[in-house]
């Protein structure tokens, strides 16, 4: 009986559909992806509330905790043995115009007076953008690699004040 000679079969994978899927996926992902790394500011203290009214005095009395009031004109710092200080923002008082460096210097002085305290009281006014508050978190948490006050106590309900 005559047998057909067995011919080697070249098994070729057709990758065209796979290529098509990938070519469609890449632009979709390029539109959706954001190349950024996320971080967080942590606080384990729920926000406190001020009574309504402008320019309240330092609340939540604890003399070791510096109090930073964030206004639309800059920072007002008091408490923790510091002299009352106003740090005016420059220019049009955009979020980048606030004096975070000056705030860090003041808080470093407060930290030297109260090294065991890790809390800072932040009182943002209602019209201050959240961007300023977030940058204040960072400025009060560390300075030049040194830990200052990484536990912010946020106080809400501040109106507009001097």
């Amino acid at each position: 009986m005559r047998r057909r000679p067995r011919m080697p079969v070249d098994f070729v994978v057709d990758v065209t559909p796979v290529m098509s899927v990938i070519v469609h996926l890449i632009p979709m992902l390029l539109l959706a992806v954001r190349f950024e790394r996320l971080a967080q500011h942590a606080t384990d203290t729920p926000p406190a509330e001020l009574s309504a009214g402008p320019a309240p005095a330092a609340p939540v009395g604890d003399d070791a905790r510096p109090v930073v009031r964030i206004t639309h004109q800059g920072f007002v710092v008091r408490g923790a043995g510091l002299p009352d200080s106003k740090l005016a923002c420059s220019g049009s008082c955009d979020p980048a115009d606030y004096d975070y460096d000056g705030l860090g210097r003041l808080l470093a002085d407060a930290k030297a007076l109260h090294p065991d305290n890790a809390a800072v009281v932040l009182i943002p006014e209602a019209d201050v953008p959240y961007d300023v508050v977030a940058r204040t978190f960072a400025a009060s948490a560390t300075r030049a690699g040194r830990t200052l006050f990484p536990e912010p106590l946020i106080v809400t309900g501040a109106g507009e004040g001097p």
Partner: protein
Amino acid sequence: MIRRRNRVAVDSGLLITSMMDMFTIILLFLLNFFDPAAGSATDLFLPATSAQAGVEAGVTLDVSPTGVSVGGMQVLALDAGRLPSDAARQGRRIDVVYDALARAKNGATDADAPLIVRADRRTAFGVLGDILYSAGAAGWARYRFVVVDEAG
């Protein structure tokens, strides 16, 4: 007489192995950065600061100029970042936000889980303050404010 070779048809297949390799690597690279949970609000721009790297897992509270979302579900629409005047409230507490956060708190497997707050950097703190007040009333005590890491 010149002997001519029989012309043999050459099957010149397109060699796309290298291209496949490149596309696969690009795809894996993009998939590494793609986070479907992070992209729930395309109009939400986080502030950029230096902070503790990494974000904990937990219930997310998104505050964008167009709305407030809890766990990816919008609960309150905002008007250019402002609270609507007709939103039902009890003092500073916003009822719909309070209800959604209370449900999330009751449904959380970990009683000490933090609330992950992702707020747009342009949000006025007065608006965020009322939302945080509602969160506090719902029982949330620990907060994680998500930012874009400047160092990253």
